[in-house]
């Protein structure tokens, strides 16, 4: 029977058996890890939309999913969440059946925005009219570099200044 410690947190017991058990720590003083602990509770015992008794399966699926995605693959993603595949289907986009765009509230907001933009440039009779003032061209940013001339400054007295400063230290 051998024990192997990795990173001080995860240890694996290899006992010549087909099954292996893996434990890991959660620091519940950290908010993110505390919420993970809460999720694990509901995965085990149910609640918040979880039927319970699916913790181990979730761990297995989660590791498979992350591993696959990090390799640039989406096979496990589509296996576990088939509806995502249909969302991303080109045929679905061509038929214009984007699920989000069917939302009535969103359509209403987009129409309102369009109206506001239109009124800003073409006000209705009830709104103030733009003055018929002559149009001026935008100012052109001139290149002022030719007006700037960097010159090195040489102070021939710098050495003398140093000696004077040093001599003053002795006074």
């Amino acid at each position, binding site marked *: 029977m051998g024990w192997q410690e990795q990173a001080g947190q995860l240890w694996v017991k290899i006992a010549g058996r087909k099954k292996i058990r893996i434990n890991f720590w959660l620091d519940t003083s950290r908010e993110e890890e505390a919420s993970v602990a809460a999720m694990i509770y509901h995965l085990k015992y149910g609640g918040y939309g979880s039927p319970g008794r699916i913790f181990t399966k979730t761990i297995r699926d989660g590791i498979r999913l992350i591993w696959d995605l990090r390799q640039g693959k989406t096979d496990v993603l589509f296996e576990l969440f088939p509806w995502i595949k249909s969302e991303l289907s080109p045929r679905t986009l061509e038929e214009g059946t984007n699920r989000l765009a069917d939302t009535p509230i969103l359509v209403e907001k987009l129409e309102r925005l369009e109206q506001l933009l239109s009124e800003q440039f073409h006000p209705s009779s009830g709104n103030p009219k733009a003055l018929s003032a002559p149009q001026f061209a935008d100012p052109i940013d001139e290149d002022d570099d030719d007006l700037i001339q960097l010159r090195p*400054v*040489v*102070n*021939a*007295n*710098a*050495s*003398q*200044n*140093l*000696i004077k*400063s*040093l*001599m*003053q*230290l*002795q006074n």
Partner: protein
Amino acid sequence: MATHIVSIDAGNGGTNAVRAMKSGGYKQIYFPSVRASATGESLGLGKDLELQYDYVDWGSHRYVIGDDVLRVTRRHMERHQGAFRYGDEFHRFLISVAVGKLGIRSGSVDLTLFAPPGMYVQARELLQKRLFEHGATTMIQFKGDKKPRRWTYENVTVWPEGLGAAACFALDEKGEVVANDLLSGETVILDMGVYTLDALKLTDGNFNPEMLEHATWENGGISTHILQPVLRAIKKTSNDFSILTPDDIDLCLRTGLTTGDYTLRLAGYEVDLKPLIDRHSERYAEWIANNIIDGVFNGLRGIRSAILIGGGHPLTERWLRKWYAEKIVDPTPHITGKKIAAVDMNAVGGLRLSLARVTS
């Protein structure tokens, strides 16, 4: 006027000392700032059969100094690093050994010393007080001397580290002002020593004395960032290496920088330290970039140039130049006289300042 003009940077890692020669130019020496007790006894077997080494008699004790400490004996090995050493017995010992190694046996000495900017005010007071509290005369006897050497400190000047180095390119070898544009505009001087890292900003050569206090990072030097980490790594490889000290790594590093051979040999083993040194040198450069250059000096925005000096220069320059490109300026083309290594710039700058003062 003093008989001898000497400038000594008795740093935490090593002691650099220069002496103005009457014929022109200067004499220069260096030794690691470490000592150990020694007996100096000989079996009379001659130099072919006995290990030969130098020692000094200082006070009532005999010492081996510098690299001889590792070669001959590690008994009572002693360093004193940190903020409290200025003018203490060990510091005075290093100064005296340096003066003696420069060939001085008697007379009066115009002495220049250095302290980190962040401790400058306190260190200057301590140095000037402690060097004179037992009288201005110093005695020390080297191996081979028939009698102790004796000289008097006629004048003691203390400069902030880094700024003393800047005098290398502000003055020529005779102590006269050099008109160049190296210090024009905003300049940052980074002095990477063994214990401290000092960072000073100048504007057209001027600096704000009020800012000196904030210019030193203790434990910002190569001991903390390179020597100690390399030593820790090496000690883990073998029990035999457990007796190694930072001085062993320092010796290997200095040898490698000079000869290209970074091999450490002990107890029948050898190991090439270059990969480790390179790794920690880059890490040190990153630390400097993050904490000092970006953290304090806005990534050198608004700064015309940054000048790197000190022992850490050859270890970090290529990384800092890679990240900050044209902002890292090599000052050596602006230095008159013979080429000066970055680690020697404080001592040589101090000598030039002394010459400027005595000839004015």
